[in-house]
C-alpha cells in the first residue's frame, strides 16, 4: 500500500513565533499530538514539528512556564519526510530507526500529509484483509 492512501491529508500548523502554551491549546482543542511548525520567515522553507513529547519532556517536566517558551526553542528540525509513493514497510522502518511516532509525506518541498503509528497499523490490517482480492 502506498503511503498516500493512508496518510492524513490535512496537517495542522502553527507559527514558530507563538508560545508553547498556544501549541498546547491548539493540540487539546483539536485532539492532536503534533503540529507542523511554520517558519516565521516565509522565505525559508525549513519547517519543523512540535510534538506532545517535546512539550511534556522539555517544558513541563522541567517546571518551565509554557507561556514563556517559544515554539521555535523546542521544535525539531528538519522534518522527516517520505515520498508519497513510499511503502508501508519503508515508513515503519524509518519510524523505528529514528524512534518517532509520525512522519510527514512530502513532495518537492510541499507537505502533502502526515502518517502516524496508528495509520501504519490500520493500513497493515487493510492490506492484509484485501490480500488476494481484486479491489
Amino acid at each position, binding site marked *: 500500500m502506498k503511503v498516500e492512501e493512508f496518510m492524513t491529508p490535512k496537517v495542522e500548523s502553527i507559527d514558530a513565533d507563538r508560545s508553547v502554551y498556544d501549541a498546547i491549546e491548539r493540540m487539546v482543542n483539536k485532539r492532536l499530538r503534533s503540529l507542523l511548525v511554520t517558519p516565521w520567515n516565509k522565505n525559508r522553507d525549513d519547517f519543523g514539528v512540535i510534538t506532545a513529547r517535546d512539550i511534556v519532556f522539555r517544558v513541563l517536566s522541567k517546571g518551565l512556564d509554557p507561556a514563556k517558551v517559544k515554539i521555535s526553542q523546542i521544535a525539531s528540525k528538519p522534518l522527516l519526510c517520505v515520498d508519497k509513493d513510499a511503502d508501508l514497510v519503508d515508513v515503519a522502518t524509518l519510524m523505528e530507526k529514528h524512534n518517532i511516532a509520525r512522519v510527514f509525506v512530502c513532495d518537492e518541498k510541499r507537505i502533502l500529509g502526515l502518517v502516524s503509528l496508528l495509520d501504519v497499523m*490500520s493500513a497493515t*490490517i*487493510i492490506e492484509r*484483509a*484485501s490480500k488476494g*482480492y481484486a*479491489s
Partner: protein
Amino acid sequence: MLLKNLFAIGKKEDLVIAKISNQIKLICTACESFRDAIKNRDLRLMHRIIEMERDGDVLKREIFSTIYAGAFLPYLRPDLFRFVHIVDDVFDLLEDAAFNYLDLTLNEEIEFECARVAELNLRMCEMLSITFQAMLNGEELREKILAVRIYEKKIDDIKFEIIKKVRTVEVESFWEGTVLSDFISSLTSMSDMIEDASDHLQIISASLR
C-alpha cells in the same frame, strides 16, 4: 432423478448468492459515482445514483422472493434477510445524500471533507464485498471486519470535524440549513450501516458453529 432434484434446488441458493453479490457490487459502483460526482461537482452523475438505488430495490425484492420460494434451510434465512435489508438501507442513505446534494452548494473546506468521507465509504463497500466473498470461501472473517471498523472510525473522526466546521456556515433559510444537515447526516451515517452489514456476515458465518 433425485440427484437432479438436489441439483435444481442448489440453483435457487446459487441465484440468491449471485444476486447478493450483484447488490454489493452495485452499491460499490454507486459509492464510486458519488465520490466522483462530489469531486467533479457532476450533477448528472448524482442523478445516476438515484436511478441505481431503484435498481438496488429491484434486486432486493428479487432476492427476497427467491428466498421465500424455498432457498436455504430456515435457520439461515432470517440472517440473510437482515443482511440484504441493511445493504438496501445503505443505498437509501446514499440516495438521500445524492438528492440533497443537488440542492446544495458546499463551501470548499466542507466539500473536501465530504469527498474524503465519500472515498472512505467506497473503501468500506469494497471491503464489505471482499468480506462477503471470503465468507463464501469459508475464510476467517476477523481481519476483514476489523478493516471495516478501521474505516468506520476514520469516518467518525472526519464527521466530528465536519460538524464543527458546518456550525460556522451561514445559512439563508431554515430549509437550506435542513438540506445541508440532512446531507451530512446521510453521508456520515452510511458507515455505521456498512459496519452493521459486515457484522451480520460474521453472524451468518458463525451460525453453524
